[in-house]
């Protein structure tokens, strides 16, 4: 192939583009280092290397662009330097070498001059390093092996002075010709059809450790893991097992490691189906086995991991897939689109070196240049270069996806998976515990929340102590009325005595259907004092539901203070109007009744809606809620100078701390008027009038509140607590703009006494998002996989809660209680339970927990799991959007509803595309003036508009024609290259089918038309005709101004 311009193979073209996209990156440097324990004769080595270059055409090949097309040419002579370096007189020769190597690997090749860099380094008289770095365009793993043994032979010949006998290497041109013939014949057609079909089922590439696929740099880190003799032998045994053994040991090992890799990626991404890329050596002809050059071509391998998939059942699938892969991995059949389907590359290197150089043992390393193709998040290589019998793994981690911590942990996760496979191929992949001991120890330390609080306390113990301390202080304020601590205590005592006279005992359930008022407080306190558990009921509860709850809970008595009570209810149940009873209360003593209450007795019961439609009552005991209140008081100290507002409807458990905590500490509690909690202006009035210091909001309501007029006058506010929904950065930012307050994000289910985690939102940390935080006192949290294994840090799983606050289960729902309150398998005490929340969460590296939505809010669209909440959070990050809800319509479109400023759809899409995979970007966007809220303040998803969605999507998107001369020129070239009739100036290059090859063509054509120097990257940086033309215009303007 001497001195003629030759075109590049498909693979070479891809590398060329890759290099062009990252011109400064040494990501294609393939560095082999051979450590030789021999006294190398430098002059003979030089002679041998010279002969090597003379006899191998690829080593004399250079690359350049001719009329916009990359070409290669083999020079008859090439200028190169063989560096001979002597470190033997250094104090630490090897270390000096390592330092040298670290810099040298980044060597930047000028592709038009020489594509290799060779050095011989002397460490001692009989200890040398042969360093050879070749650009990937002229080599591959197999090629380096041939080169090594060839060099060894040449050196021997040089020593024995028999160099004349050396023949030329077979020419790489034979491969180029072969590729061309295949392309011309339809020999590759079958393979092409196969891949085309296969490609249609390829899902989006998995998100490793849920890390988003943003623009990555080429920086990467290689970690070498030696599996050791024992493990390698066990793997070889496994390779001989029935059903696992394939045609050859190499193929079997290939399948074993690929199976483990699939299982690993599945476990750390949660994605069930995906593809992994894998190279095939492509040396399909006898002569190619001795030819130096770049032959390998990567193809995708697809697998789907089903529920309860075992390693054995997966490897059976992999066997079939890898057979089909081998069969169809034909030269030139890969495409750019196929390579875009994977971000994990698997490379099984079955070429061991001769292990000897001139009959002296050699230790081989493939040195990583610290960079790799940014499309690959992980490259996984299996090899045993020196035939030691101990298998080695290289993990090449893209450092954007794998930070330093993760690099050190990720490979351990893989080993956990691999070891589980070796131990028992019939083990279900889902049941493998992949968290490392180090991670478990960390999680344990985050769960170390033990605090000793006073024993034997009940919900009112501290209140009653407070009554003694400050009897005359104001406890409650409602409209114009006030109640002192003493008054409240005495009235509540009278209610308690009334209940006791009616035969109420500990753990009896007393329902309250009370509008917010002083009475509401008095009666709830009275119930507790009598030893009963209060059961709050919405005053607007429909008749049937009310009757169901009263019956289900075995309610002894119902208190009400409104006219909405149904006759049938008063007829069938024991009901008492507080208005009537109030006139008779004076008959009962004002002293504290003596009641024997235990901390395990019920304090309250709250009904939550069940997924089956039937509400279920959660049994909450004194110890749980007391722990919750003690913790809150420790973390957020308050005093008698504080004023709280009771605005949360008592049917929601957030109200429990509003009702009891302030009065435990001597503070004042303003009881908001009925429905006042829904009226932001009224709240502003209340806050200003009573100088309220602490308040709770559901995030949706906080969003409305901070946009209310006069909010900036609420200067008395010092703390805002949020819970009930996930809190978005946007809402907190807006709050900080208007108010000088602390914002705390709390999380917890009713089943674990209100809240179990907390997070202080700090302005300077908002860019990291808002986690739900860390566990409260005496609470342990576990993030587990479906088999109840602890998950590694950073991996999403279901959140479980254990500790003092876990409720006693559901009333009369033994089955459901058993399902949700399971045995705490991590506790030494066999009787403790943990609550299965149904919420998805993961640990951050700092131990804070991120909430990732409801397990049942996860939807599956086209086989991909989508968490709607995640899309919502990203929408809220877009300027102008204050809150967003995403739903799926009947045609499986993702529909985004949002409030705030109306934003141009392309702007939203652009913003989302930067942060979300394409399949998570909604198809339809609906701007609303506001969301309808549920009584709890949360958004009512059922009331989102449903109409006209279909019409919207069918609305044809108008293609905007070019607007100026430059746009026209660009348009014509795009249209021609992409073989389309019209392209709108705002259409995205990738979305209309553009790829790297078309980018080359576009760039080269425009270069010659406009006579401008342009980079291929511009097409990706300015992916629309409009932005691309605009960039050209600016370049021209800059040039003219110079």
């Amino acid at each position, binding site marked *: 192939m001497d001195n003629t311009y030759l075109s590049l193979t498909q693979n070479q073209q891809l590398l060329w583009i890759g290099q062009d996209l990252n011109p400064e990156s040494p990501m294609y440097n393939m560095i082999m280092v051979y450590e030789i324990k021999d006294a190398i004769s430098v002059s003979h080595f030089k002679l041998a290397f010279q002969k090597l270059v003379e006899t191998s055409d690829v080593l004399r090949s250079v690359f350049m662009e001719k009329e916009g097309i990359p070409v290669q040419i083999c020079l008859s002579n090439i200028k190169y330097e063989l560096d001979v370096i002597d470190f033997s007189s250094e104090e630490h020769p090897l270390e000096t070498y390592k330092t040298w190597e670290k810099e040298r690997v980044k060597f930047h090749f000028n592709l038009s001059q020489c594509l290799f860099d060779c050095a011989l380094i002397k460490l001692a008289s009989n200890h040398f390093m042969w360093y050879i770095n070749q650009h990937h365009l002229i080599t591959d793993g197999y090629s380096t092996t041939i080169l090594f043994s060839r060099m060894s032979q040449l050196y021997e010949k040089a020593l024995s002075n028999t160099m004349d006998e050396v023949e030329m290497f077979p020419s790489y041109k034979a491969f180029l010709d072969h590729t061309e013939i295949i392309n011309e014949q339809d020999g590759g057609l079958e393979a092409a059809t196969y891949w085309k079909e296969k490609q249609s089922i390829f899902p989006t590439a998995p998100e490793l450790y849920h890390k988003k696929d943003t623009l990555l740099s080429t920086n990467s880190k290689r970690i070498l893991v030696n599996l050791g003799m024992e493990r390698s032998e066990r793997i070889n045994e496994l390779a001989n097992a029935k059903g696992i053994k394939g*045609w050859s040991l190499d193929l079997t090992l290939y399948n074993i490691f690929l199976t483990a890799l699939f299982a690993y990626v599945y476990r750390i991404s949660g994605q069930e189906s995906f593809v992994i890329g894998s190279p095939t050596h492509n040396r399909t002809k006898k002569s190619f086995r001795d030819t130096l050059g770049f032959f390998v071509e990567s193809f995708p391998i697809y697998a789907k991991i089903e529920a309860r998939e075992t390693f054995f059942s997966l490897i059976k699938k992999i066997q079939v897939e890898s057979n089909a892969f081998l069969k169809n991995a034909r030269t030139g059949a890969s495409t750019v689109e196929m390579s875009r389907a994977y971000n994990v590359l698997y490379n099984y290197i079955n070429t061991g070196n001769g292990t000897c150089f001139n009959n002296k043992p050699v230790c081989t390393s493939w040195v990583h240049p610290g960079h790799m193709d940014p499309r690959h998040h992980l490259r996984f290589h299996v090899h045993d270069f020196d035939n030691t019998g101990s298998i080695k793994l290289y993990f090449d981690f893209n450092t954007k996806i794998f930070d330093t911590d993760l690099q050190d942990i990720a490979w351990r996760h893989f080993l956990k998976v691999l070891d589980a496979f070796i131990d028992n191929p019939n083990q279900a992949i889902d049941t493998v515990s992949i968290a490392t001991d180090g991670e478990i120890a960390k999680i344990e330390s985050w769960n170390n929340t033990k605090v000793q609080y006073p024993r034997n306390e009940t919900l009112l113990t501290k209140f009653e102590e407070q009554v003694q301390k400050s009897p005359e202080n104001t406890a409650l304020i409602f409209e114009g009325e006030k109640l002192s601590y003493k008054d409240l205590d005495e009235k509540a005592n009278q209610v308690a005595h009334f209940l006791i006279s009616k035969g109420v005992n500990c753990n009896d359930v007393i329902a309250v259907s009370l509008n917010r008022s002083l009475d509401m407080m008095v009666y709830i306190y009275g119930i507790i004092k009598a030893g009963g558990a209060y059961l709050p009921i919405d005053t607007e509860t429909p008749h049937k539901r009310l009757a169901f709850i009263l019956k289900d809970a075995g309610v002894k008595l119902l208190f009400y203070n409104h006219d909405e009570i149904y006759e049938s209810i008063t007829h069938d149940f024991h009901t008492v109007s507080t208005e009537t009873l109030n006139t008779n209360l004076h008959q009962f003593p004002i002293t504290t009744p003596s009641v024997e209450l235990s901390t395990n007795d019920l304090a309250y019961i709250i009904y939550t809606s069940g997924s089956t439609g039937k509400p279920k009552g959660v049994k909450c005991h004194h110890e749980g809620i007391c722990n919750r209140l003690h913790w809150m008081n420790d973390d957020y100290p308050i005093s008698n100078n504080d004023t709280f507002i009771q605005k949360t409807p008592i049917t929601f458990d957030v109200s429990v701390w509003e009702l009891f905590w302030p009065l435990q500490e001597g503070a004042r509690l303003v009881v908001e008027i009925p429905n006042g909690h829904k009226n932001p202006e009224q709240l502003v009035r209340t806050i200003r009038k009573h100088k309220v210091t602490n308040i709770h909001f559901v995030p949706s309501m906080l969003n409305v509140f901070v946009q209310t007029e006069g909010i900036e006058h609420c200067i008395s506010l010092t703390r805002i607590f949020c819970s009930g929904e996930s809190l978005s950065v946007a809402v907190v930012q807006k709050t900080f703009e208007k108010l000088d307050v602390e914002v705390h994000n709390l999380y917890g289910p009713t089943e674990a006494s209100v809240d179990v985690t907390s997070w202080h939102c700090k302005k300077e940390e908002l860019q990291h998002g808002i986690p739900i935080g860390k566990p409260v006192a005496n609470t342990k949290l576990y993030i587990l996989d479906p088999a109840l294994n602890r998950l590694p840090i950073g991996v999403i799983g279901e959140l479980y809660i254990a500790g003092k606050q876990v409720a006693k289960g559901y009333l009369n729902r033994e089955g459901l209680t058993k399902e949700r309150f399971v045995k705490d398998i991590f506790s030494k005490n066999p009787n403790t339970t943990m609550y299965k929340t149904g919420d998805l969460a993961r640990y951050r590296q700092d131990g804070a927990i991120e909430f990732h939505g409801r397990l049942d809010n996860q939807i599956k669209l086209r086989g991909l799991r989508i968490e709607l909440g995640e899309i919502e959070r990203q929408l809220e990050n877009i300027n102008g959007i204050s809150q967003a809800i995403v739903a799926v319509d009947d045609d499986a479109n993702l529909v985004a509803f949002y409030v705030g400023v109306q934003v141009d759809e392309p702007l939203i899409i652009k913003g989302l595309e930067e942060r979300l995979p394409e399949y998570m970007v909604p198809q339809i966007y609906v701007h609303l003036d506001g969301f309808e809220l549920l009584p709890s303040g949360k958004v009512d998803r059922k009331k989102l508009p449903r109409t006209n969605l279909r019409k919207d999507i069918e609305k044809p998107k108008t293609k905007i024609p070019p607007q100026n001369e430059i746009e026209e020129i660009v348009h014509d070239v795009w249209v021609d290259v992409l073989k389309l009739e019209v392209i709108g100036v705002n259409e995205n290059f990738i979305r209309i089918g553009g790829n790297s090859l078309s980018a080359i063509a576009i760039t080269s054509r425009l270069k010659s038309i406009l006579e401008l120097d342009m980079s291929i990257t511009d097409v990706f940086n300015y992916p629309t005709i409009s932005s691309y033309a605009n960039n050209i215009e600016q370049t021209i303007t800059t040039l003219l101004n110079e």
Partner: protein
Amino acid sequence: MEQVILKYINEQLLFDNEMEEDLDSDTDLLGSGILDSLGMVQLIAFVEKEFMVKVPPEDMVIENFMNVDSVCAYLLSK
């Protein structure tokens, strides 16, 4: 059939030039390292074309391709 296959392997696929014995119909193709996995698929592609059969990935197992005899037996069973 046997001869055709043997001829193909000898001419197109045999990588190991230093093989001492001749290739026979009962020579272990895989165990003795005569063919690697890619070579094996080439052989399959060849028989598919030559004998007008289709070898699905499921059939690509060691039992069917151990040696030329087993390849013939498999093909006859199709």
